[in-house]
């Protein structure tokens, strides 16, 4: 049994924004799935449906074996949710936020006190536990959000863009924390992000979302491995017709794509292909501004499957 299983989810927000368009995914027991996609791809909508906050127009989903549409109560008991916007009560203290969250799951007494103390300690919030949340730094607030999602020891944890808006230092600390959570064999994690490096680093498996559907899926290493060879990026002095054709004639160069002044291609041996590529372009009278050769990145995976660069999506 998968911890999370979604089939063919579709949702359109009025007046006609197609947020999800046949999205399906699975998360295995103890696995971390990274749902990677640019803003507006449909990540948050997916999380909202899987966490019973909203309903899909069509499609079905099960979380920890419970149907999200038929048994939302059963689902709510076993999930932890850290949503994109912090849901902590700013007027209450960090400790009070945690205690209330525990009460809502039926925890109480010494067991809850102990659990709260442990979480405060673990997320390095002990010193600020008695302060109102509105006085917290961004990193402290986000760590509290994660702690809130963990109070009741959920079987499935949803993390919606847990590091967006954090400074590099706070992000590194959060990565550290999530890596530790990922080590927990009992808990499945669905993590959404629009940072390629975050998915690369934290997720055992990545599903790339684009315009409400999954366009590619697999372990980050495998996805990159599928793009045999290196990525060659060439920037032209100006947009020129025929550049793509000229580059395609070079032996060993494949999958040429044009994006304005930028050409991208794959080559089994990037370094060896560069001189031939430059010669071919020069021969065609096309001026080159710069050339880079890189090991495939998730950005290249995204380009291949979504047809455009991640940063421009």
């Amino acid at each position: 049994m998968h911890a999370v299983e979604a089939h063919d989810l579709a949702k359109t927000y009025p007046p006609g924004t197609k947020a999800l368009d046949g999205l399906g995914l699975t998360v295995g027991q103890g696995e971390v799935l990274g749902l990677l996609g640019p803003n507006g791809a449909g990540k948050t909508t997916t999380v909202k449906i899987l966490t019973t906050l909203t309903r899909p127009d069509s499609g079905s989903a099960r979380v920890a074996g419970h149907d999200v549409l038929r048994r939302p109560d059963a689902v709510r008991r076993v999930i932890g949710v850290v949503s994109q916007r912090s849901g902590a009560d700013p007027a209450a203290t960090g400790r009070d936020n945690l205690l209330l969250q525990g009460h809502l799951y039926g925890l109480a007494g010494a067991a809850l006190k102990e659990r709260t103390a442990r979480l405060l300690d673990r997320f390095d919030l002990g010193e600020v536990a008695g302060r109102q949340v509105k006085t917290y730094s961004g990193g402290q607030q986000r760590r509290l959000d994660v702690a809130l999602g963990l109070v009741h020891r959920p079987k499935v944890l949803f993390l919606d863009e847990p590091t967006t808006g954090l400074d590099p230092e706070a992000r590194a600390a959060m990565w550290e924390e999530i890596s530790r959570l990922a080590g927990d064999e009992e808990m499945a994690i669905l993590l959404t992000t629009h940072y390629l490096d975050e998915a690369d680093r934290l997720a055992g498996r990545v599903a790339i979302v684009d315009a409400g559907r999954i366009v590619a899926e697999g372990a980050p290493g495998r996805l990159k491995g599928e793009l045999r060879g290196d990525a060659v990026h060439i920037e032209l002095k100006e947009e020129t017709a025929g550049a793509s054709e000229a580059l395609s004639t070079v032996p060993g160069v494949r999958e040429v794509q044009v994006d304005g002044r930028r050409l991208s291609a794959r080559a089994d041996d990037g370094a060896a292909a560069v001189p031939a590529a430059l010669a071919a372009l020069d021969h065609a009278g096309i001026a080159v501004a710069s050339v880079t050769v890189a090991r495939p990145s998730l950005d290249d995976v995204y380009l291949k499957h979504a047809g455009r660069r991640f940063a421009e999506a």
Partner: protein
Amino acid sequence: MTALMTDTWWMTARRLKAWIRQPALLVITLVQPAIWLFLFGNLFKKVVQLPGFGSGSYLDYLVPGVVVMSAVSSSMWAGMGAIEEIDRGTLNRFLVTPVRRSAIMNANLVEQAVSTAVQSLLIVLLAWAAGAEFSGGIGGVAVLVVASVLLGAVFAAMSNTFGMLIRQRETIIGLSVFLLLPLTFLSSAFMAPALMPEWMRHVAAANPLNWALDTARAALSASPDWGIVVIHGAWLLALAVVMVGLSIRTFRTYQKTV
């Protein structure tokens, strides 16, 4: 049932804690009623001499009016809190926990009821210190407080419903600007119904604020008319139940648009 009660208890405790943290707010909400009491109380002192007004002291007459008006005035802001909780994501955080939806709404109501009751009692004390008399005694004051709590529930639920559906602060502000004064002046708050134009009396008869005043005035008089208290109180209660039911249903509509 017990789960609903414990949920309601925890959610209410959260709200009351936040409320207790800012005692200054309570003082601020008392400034306006105090101004109404002393300004109107002095300005219209002689109104009672009009034939047919039928009351000895205008201050005595004014107190229930100011209490009820203040209850409406502060309850109408409830929707602001709802919008804030939506914008912050706090409401969504609760909605993905097992907490009962009705417990979330109950907590709003209980908070509203407690603050309306405290506010009403403080106004009564203020008026009493200024020399107002309450012929109906403690029982009359209790009915006044209950009536203003019920009326507060009506408008708090309405404000919450608008807040959740429209999610714009301007709507809430507009609601209180457009409703508060007409509702107040189309009632017996400041002027005896006997002296109102005929059409106004008819409008007032359908005004919930006036139902609360009828209930309270009947209980506060030297010889309370419990028939009126019960009947008008029942109308008010029925309306409060309907409005609260409506606001709980709004959660479903809200979740469709999340």
